[in-house]
């Protein structure tokens, strides 16, 4: 039989869904994926700058977006941010 106090603690977490992970656990600040590590190891720091439409959706008609380390950016973002 489960200890009563532990059980109360377990089932009385509130929020949208009472047993979802703690805030911040999945906030996007994760370790890089294997693919990112491989890209970095190849010495291509910017290797993940590829057309976003190709990476995200092969059928998307949009142009002018790029994918950079998971960020979906406009093509002129990176040069501008580099200057900022």
């Amino acid at each position: 039989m489960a200890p009563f106090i532990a059980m109360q603690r377990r089932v009385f977490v509130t929020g949208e869904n009472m047993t979802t992970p703690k805030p911040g656990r999945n906030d996007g600040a994760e370790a890089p994926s294997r693919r990112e590590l491989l890209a970095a190891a190849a010495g291509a720091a910017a290797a993940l700058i590829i057309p976003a439409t190709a990476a995200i959706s092969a059928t998307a008609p949009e142009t002018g977006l790029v994918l950079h380390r998971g960020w979906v950016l406009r093509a002129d973002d990176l040069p501008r941010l580099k200057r900022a």
Partner: protein
Amino acid sequence: MILDSEARTDDWFAGKVFDVCVIGSGPAGATIAHRLGARGFKVALCEAGGLLLTPDSQDLYEGTSTGAPQYYDLTACRLRYFGGSSNHWGGWTRPLDAYDFEPKAHNPLSGWPIDRTALDIYAGEADAILNLPLDTAPADFFDNHPPELIPRLFRFSRPTTRFGELYKDDFDKSANVTVYLNANLVDMRLGDSLQAVNEAVFQSYEKPGRFSVRARAFALCLGGLENPRFLLNANSQISAGIGNENDLVGRYFLEHAHAPLGRVVVRQPLTRMICYAPSPEFMNEKQILNFGLRIGSFDQWNRPDFTGALDPEPACTIDFDTLLKAEMAGEKAACPAMVGDAFVACEQTLNPDNRVTLTDTRDRFGLREMNLNWTLSETDRRTLKTAATELAKRMAEADVGRMRVLPWLINDEMPNKDQVYGGNHHMGTTRMSGDPKSGVVDADCKVHSLANLYVGGSSVFATSGHANPTYSITQLALRLGDHLTTVLRA
């Protein structure tokens, strides 16, 4: 009147036939019992637990789970006492969308035998029961939102309705509703022709022996996992279990696949959580199902007092590019109101292998425990990925902000339990259908093969949409109360 079945005597049920025996006092059961009692019907409301949580009762939720991502501990994702799982409900509500009721070619068996208008007429009553604010226009951070993404509103039950607390005094004073606490359903006895339920059989924890409640109609409202578990266990007269002639009880289990999608940096401060759902045309084009995107602050919307408004922040004097550059570098947000989280809850494909089955382990009353198998289909994963990428693209195109999509979504990796998880929404296991070959209950929530057994709660959902289920559960319970009123008066 509220009675403890541990204190029962032989004369409690002798010669008594209730109009309705409602089993389970969560949102569905309590609502049905209250409605029928107010209309003069004699109701037995049988609750397996007491007025408070006890280990004796909660431990009866033990079971196992299989599949991936791993599902929650089955004793932690629901509550087995008066008021049921409403006792830890988070209070998020919205109705199902009208197109959730329609069949979709890329989700075989989808479609309900009713449309949304059948539930809309109960919206006002559901709003009042659930303490909801007025239904207002949803927030939108696009000047002209793309046709693919439709703004949606969530409303929050505040103070959050706990159905036991809501109805306890009424039940206590009622001459028509008798609540029997500590009454664990262990069997149902059918008539000789096996076409109707004569009595429901119960057992309490301490007092030896079983007792039976006879009624003209029965409403099974044990929750989306226990409804099928009981029906499968009830095999003393029908070997496959009650209502399981077509091997459907327990199948088509549905959850809402919840997933953090990534971080956002926006140009205008977020003052409210913003939500989007896909248009029907977009769902068809991409062969995906419904989803509810949320943009805001993860730590704020998981607070139990969250109402949709985000905490006000001092005016941000830092320009967008500086904020974006900092976030891209993984630095802590200097203006939290302009940096937030994107999250989604997705509808799942109807999959007969996502199901409740029985194991060989028996509980203290001799009923077999359950195994829950839960998996994500390719369509489910496509829906999750499309939600993330569509939002990211539309934000950048409209220049309202930028979004980082989590790597597993971009790389098409199989998610783990920290990346995709359920919402503790247990649906579909006695699904509604006009055809007994594709559903357990009919449009009136009556078990197809029995004349007087009804099912309440989210197990009757034919599909789940993306909306949190309590609102629809309440509407369906009010509707079932009306249907039983008509049947019992005939």
